C-alpha cells in the first residue's frame, strides 16, 4: 500500500532505494524508499520502533543495509561510519547531544579538522575567528569562546547545526530536535532550518510533535512496523490521517478522560519554599483528582515536585498528608507516605540503564516485597510479569536489559516501578516526553485508571493541549511561584499562557 503522490520533486539530493534490514533473520525494515529533494524538509514519522532510527543508522553507516542502495546527488555511496557519512555531506543532529563538555564552542566546531598554523600546531585564533564569522553570518546567538558545559540544549543544537553548515553538509538529519528546548528556542531553530533550506540542504526531520511537522515539513514519509506507509506532501495530510497512518488504527479521542468526583484532600501544601527555585507555593490535592501544573521551562515545576518528594530539603513551609503534618527529608520518607514521583529525566533519574527491566520495576518496592531482606525470585517474577502486563511493557523478557527498550517502553517501566510501590499520591513530571502516540495514549488511559482507583495525581507538562486534555484543574507557575489557578470549565490556552508569562521584576528566560 505504498502511495507515491509526492510533492513537487525538484532536484534530488538523497535517495535511499529499497532499503531492507533484518536482524537475525527477522525483518526490521522492508523495502523502504526515501527521497529527499534539495531545500526540502522531509519529515520521517512513525511510532517508536517503526524503524526510523534503524533507517537513519543505515544512512549514517552505523548499520549496513542488507539490500538497497543510497544515492547522494545521484552517485551511489556506501558509508561505513558516521564520520565517513559526514565527510560525504550527511550530518546528524542527535536527540541527545554529547559534545565534549569542557571544550569551547569553537573547539567543538572544529573538532577533528583543526585549522593548523605553518608549524602544524592548532591555530586557535584562526579557529575562534572563523567560528565567530560563521555565527554572525548565521545569526547564531552563541559566544564562540564559551564552554559547551555552559550552553543549554538549544544552544548546543545550534552549534551542531553550524558545524554541519561549515562542513557544507548536503543532508542534515534532525532527531527530535525540539524535545528539550523552549518555544522561543524552537523559533530560532526553525529559522536555522529555513536557512538550511534556502541553501539547498535537504533536511530529514524526525519528531512526534504534529504541530511542528505541519509547520515546517514539505513532505512526510510514514513508517510503520518497518514498512513504508507512504510519502505525501504535508499539505495533503491532516492530523487525523497522519496519526491513522502511523498507528494503523483510529484514535477516537486524543485525550481519553475519566471524570471522577474528587474525594477528601490528601495533600495540603502551604508556603513551600526551596531556595529561590520554589517560592511560597500553596496547593491542595484531592483523591480522584488530576491536578495539572503548567508553566514554562524553568518555572520551578520540577523543583516543586522534587521538594515535595524530599529530593531537595524544603527551606520553608509545611506539608500535610491526610491532614497530618509531615516532614519529608528524603525520598524514602515520601515513599513511606505512599507518594511516588515519576521524574522527567528518564535516563538520568528514572532508570538504572545497566539493570534489567525487573530490577528497575522492583527497585522502589524492595522493602515492601521482601521485608526480611532476602529476595524471592518466583515472587519477584510474578509481581513483575503482572505489572508488565498491566502497563503493556513490550520487552523480550523481564530479564532484558532496560536499555534495550524503546523510549515509550522505558517510560512504562518507570511508571511500573512507581505503581508497584502502591502510592496514593502520584506526581508525574512530563510523563509523555519523547514518547510516541500509542504509548502516550496508554499513559493517559493509565492516569484515568489511577484516579478511578481513588489515587490523587499531579501531572507536570509543558504541552498545554495535553495538560488541558487530562487535568481537572491547572496550577500555573512562573519564576518559582504559583501565578494562577484555572478550573476545567475555564480552561483556555491564552489564559494559561498569560499566567505562565507573569514574571516579576523582569523574570527569567527558560533556564534549568
Amino acid at each position, binding site marked *: 500500500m505504498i502511495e507515491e503522490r509526492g510533492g513537487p520533486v525538484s532536484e534530488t539530493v538523497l535517495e535511499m532505494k529499497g532499503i531492507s534490514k533484518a536482524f537475525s533473520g527477522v525483518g526490521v525494515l522492508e523495502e523502504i524508499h526515501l527521497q529527499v529533494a534539495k531545500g526540502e524538509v522531509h519529515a520521517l514519522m512513525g511510532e517508536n520502533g517503526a524503524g526510523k532510527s534503524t533507517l537513519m543508522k543505515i544512512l549514517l553507516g552505523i548499520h549496513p543495509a542488507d539490500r538497497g542502495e543510497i544515492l547522494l546527488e545521484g552517485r551511489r555511496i556506501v558509508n561505513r561510519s558516521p564520520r565517513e557519512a559526514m565527510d560525504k555531506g550527511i550530518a546528524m543532529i542527535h536527540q541527545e547531544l554529547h559534545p565534549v563538555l569542557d571544550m569551547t564552542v569553537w573547539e567543538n566546531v572544529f573538532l577533528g579538522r583543526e585549522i593548523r598554523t605553518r608549524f602544524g600546531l592548532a591555530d586557535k585564533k584562526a579557529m575562534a575567528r572563523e567560528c565567530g564569522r560563521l555565527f554572525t553570518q548565521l545569526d547564531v546567538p552563541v559566544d564562540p569562546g564559551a564552554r559547551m558545559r555552559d550552553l543549554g540544549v538549544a544552544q548546543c543544537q545550534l552549534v551542531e547545526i553550524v558545524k554541519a553548515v561549515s562542513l557544507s553538509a548536503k543532508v542534515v538529519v534532525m532527531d527530535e530536535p525540539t524535545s528539550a528546548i523552549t518555544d522561543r528556542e524552537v523559533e530560532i531553530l526553525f529559522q536555522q532550518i529555513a536557512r538550511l533550506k534556502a541553501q539547498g540542504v535537504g533536511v530529514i526531520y524526525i519528531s512526534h510533535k504534529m504541530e511542528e511537522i505541519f509547520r515546517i515539513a514539505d513532505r512526510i514519509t510514514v513508517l510503520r512496523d518497518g514498512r513504508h506507509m507512504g510519502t505525501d506532501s504535508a499539505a495533503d495530510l491532516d492530523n487525523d490521517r497522519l496519526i491513522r497512518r502511523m498507528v494503523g488504527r483510529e484514535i477516537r479521542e486524543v485525550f481519553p478522560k475519566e471524570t471522577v468526583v474528587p474525594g477528601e484532600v490528601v495533600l495540603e501544601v502551604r508556603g513551600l519554599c526551596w531556595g529561590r527555585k520554589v517560592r511560597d507555593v500553596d496547593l491542595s490535592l484531592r483523591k480522584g483528582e488530576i491536578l495539572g501544573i503548567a508553566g514554562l521551562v524553568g518555572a520551578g515545576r520540577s523543583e516543586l515536585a522534587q521538594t515535595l518528594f524530599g529530593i531537595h530539603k524544603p527551606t520553608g513551609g509545611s506539608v500535610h498528608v491526610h491532614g497530618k503534618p509531615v516532614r519529608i527529608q528524603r525520598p524514602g520518607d515520601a515513599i513511606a507516605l505512599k507518594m511516588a514521583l515519576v521524574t522527567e529525566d528518564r535516563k538520568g533519574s528514572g532508570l538504572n540503564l545497566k539493570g534489567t527491566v525487573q530490577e528497575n520495576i522492583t527497585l*522502589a518496592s524492595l522493602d515492601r516485597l521482601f521485608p526480611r531482606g532476602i529476595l524471592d525470585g518466583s515472587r519477584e517474577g510474578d509481581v513483575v510479569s503482572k505489572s508488565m502486563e498491566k502497563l503493556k511493557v513490550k520487552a523480550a523478557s523481564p530479564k532484558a536489559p532496560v536499555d534495550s527498550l524503546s523510549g515509550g517502553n522505558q517510560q512504562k517501566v518507570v511508571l511500573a516501578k512507581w505503581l508497584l510501590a502502591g502510592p496514593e499520591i502520584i506526581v508525574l513530571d512530563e510523563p509523555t516526553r519523547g514518547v510516541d502516540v500509542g504509548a502516550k495514549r496508554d499513559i493517559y488511559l493509565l492516569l484515568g485508571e489511577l484516579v478511578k482507583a481513588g489515587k490523587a495525581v499531579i501531572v507536570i507538562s509543558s504541552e498545554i493541549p495535553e495538560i488541558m486534555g487530562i487535568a481537572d484543574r491547572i496550577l500555573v507557575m512562573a519564576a518559582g511561584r504559583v501565578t494562577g489557578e484555572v478550573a476545567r470549565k475555564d480552561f483556555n490556552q491564552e489564559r494559561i499562557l498569560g499566567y505562565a508569562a507573569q514574571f516579576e521584576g523582569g523574570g527569567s528566560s527558560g533556564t534549568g
Partner: protein
Amino acid sequence: MRRNSREVGAVEQAKSLQSSRFMREFGILFVFAGVLGALMLLSPGAFARPANLMNIIKQASVNGILAMGMMFVIISGGIDLSVGSIVALTGVVAASFAHPGEYPFLVPVVLALGLGALIGLLNGVGVAYGNIPPFIVTLGMMTIVRGLALIVSKGSPVFGVTAAFENIAGAFVLEVVPLLVVYFLVVTGASAFLLNKTVFGRRVYAVGGNEVSARFSGIDVQRIRLAVYTISGLLAGLAGLVLASRTVSGNPTAGQSYELDAIAAVIIGGVSMSGGSGKWYGTVIGALLIAVIGNGLDILNVSSHYQLVIKGAIIIFAVLLDMKGKRK
C-alpha cells in the same frame, strides 16, 4: 501472523545482548581453559598434579578473599586501594597478640577482623558523607595504614605465634582441604548470596548503575556506600589474619600491591570499572586465573620479572575482551 517490528527489534536486541553477555560473562572462561590447557601441555607432569592444583587454589585464596570485598566496592561504583595496607596492619596486630601464653586464641582473630572493618568503615564515611572521591580516600588510607603497620611493629616483622594461630590457615579439613581454602569458599559463598539473593545486593548494583535513580527510588545511598567499604575492610582484615597465620608472622611490608591484584581479579572477571554490573563467579575465575598464571610460570621456570610483564598483558587482554563483548 506477522510479528510486530517493535517486538522483533526488542527480541533481536535481546539476542545480540545475550550473545555479547555470553562473551562478557563466559569469554574469560575460554581464556582460563586456554591457559590451563597450554600449561598442561607444556608441563604435563608437574602442573596437573592434584597437589599442585590444590596449591593453586591456596595461592588464589588470599587474593580471592580480597577480590570479593573489592567486587562489592567496584560494583557500587567505587574503588578500594587500602586493602593491601590493611592486610599488613591486621597481620602485624594479630601476630602481636598471638604470642604463646599471653592472650586467648580469639583475641588476635577478633582484633584483625574488627580493625579491618573499622578502617573500611572510615573509608566509607569519607566517601559517603565526606563526598571525597573513593580513589583519594582509599589512597590516603592506604598510606596511613601502611604507616601504622610500620609504627605498631617498629618496622620489623613480628614472630613467635601460638600453634593455634598457625593452624588458622595451616590446618586441614578432612585431612586434604586446607582451612585457607575453606575461608575462600565460605567468603565466596557468602558474597554470592549477599550480592544475588538479598535486597542489599540488589541495592549495591542499583547504586553503581545509577546513583541518582537509586536515591530517587528511596535507597539510602550513603548507607550502601558505608556497607560496601566496611565489607571490603573486614575481608582485608580476614586476609591479613590468614596471611599472618600462613607465614607464621606479622610483616609490616606484607600485602604490597595486593589491592592491585584484587582489582585485577575483579576486572578480569568482567566487573565493569564504572559500576553497576558484574558477577561473583567472574571474580572467582579472575582470582584463579591470576594464581594459575603465577603457578604455571613458576613451574616453567619463568623469572618473576617476566611474570609481571605477562600478568600485566593478560589483564589488559582480559579487559579488551570484556569491552569487545559490551560493544554490540
